[in-house]
């Protein structure tokens, strides 16, 4: 059983801490869809964010495949955002292009999938991948910081990327 399925089971079992974990795990994802995908701002974004997690709380029992928690939350978030945009566009027309929204949501989904997969890798892999790809550190800096010969860093990153790729196959 994957981590999301376990989390869903614990939530449905009435464990309060599991709900906190669910919100913590998905708050960035939901907020990214709300703010980057649908460009909601200020009170609109906050209301949408609250509304999504209220719906998750009310409807989690209807989720058929607990391993599909992320796409399910993503879909709920889209609906909430569209409802909010529909009500606000009566007052102020929206300039959002559906294809732009789709492209942004695809990128967000991919980014979060990679983030989740990274979280499942051993610490040593997370560390080198983060330092090289996110912080743009050089092999020499990574080697010095981690106490590893710099001539082995590129191979180590390759191995870690291989393990990351396996998570998607």
């Amino acid at each position, binding site marked *: 059983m994957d981590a999301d399925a376990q989390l869903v089971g614990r939530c449905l079992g009435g464990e309060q801490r599991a709900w906190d974990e669910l919100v913590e795990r998905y708050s960035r994802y939901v907020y990214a869809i709300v703010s980057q995908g649908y460009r909601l701002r200020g009170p609109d974004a906050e209301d949408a964010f609250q509304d999504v997690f209220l719906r998750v709380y009310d409807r989690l029992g209807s989720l058929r495949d607990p391993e599909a928690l992320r796409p399910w939350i993503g879909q709920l978030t889209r609906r909430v955002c569209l409802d909010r945009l529909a009500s606000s566009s009566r007052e102020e027309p929206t300039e959002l292009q559906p294809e732009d929204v789709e492209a942004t949501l695809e990128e967000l989904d991919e980014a979060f999938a990679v983030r989740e997969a990274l979280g499942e890798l051993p610490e040593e892999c997370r560390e080198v991948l983060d330092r*090289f790809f996110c912080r743009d550190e050089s092999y*020499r800096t990574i080697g010095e910081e981690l106490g590893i010969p710099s001539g082995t860093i*590129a191979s180590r990153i390759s*191995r*870690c990327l*291989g393990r990351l790729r396996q998570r998607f196959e």
Partner: protein
Amino acid sequence: MSSSRRGAGYAAAQAAADAARLVATVARETTGWDGAAGVAAQAAALAERLDALAEADAEAFAAALAALDARSRDLPMRMQHAADVPLEIARTAADAAEVARLAAERCDGVLRADAVGAAALASGAALAAAQLVRANLLVAPDDPRAAEAARAAEDAQYAAARALDAGS
């Protein structure tokens, strides 16, 4: 001098970016090497970084030339500030030489010459960038960035020498 003229920092970054792209291609076209995809991904990331550094260097160079033309009093400060970009180019070019070394040692034989050439190009770029750091820091000889850039150039040279060994 024209403020639109691009200097050696831009050329070094572009040369190292081309070298990194060459490594990515060699890695993608190599068969039977487990780490090939990972090396291709790193080389592609380095190429992107070097493209951005080339543009950053062109801007810094233009600003330094403008200060020189205007006989600006803060020219020494601008020169010191301008050392940051070539230092980053030297470090990143050294990494490009390192992935090229790895590719030269593991790639298919028919592609080895490209990997070795990429290592030599990246090493030359690191050396050029390190020289620029030194030139920009002439007024501040104790600045540690000059030594750091020189170390990056040495790393790149070492990687290129090993790549050449693999190709001989």
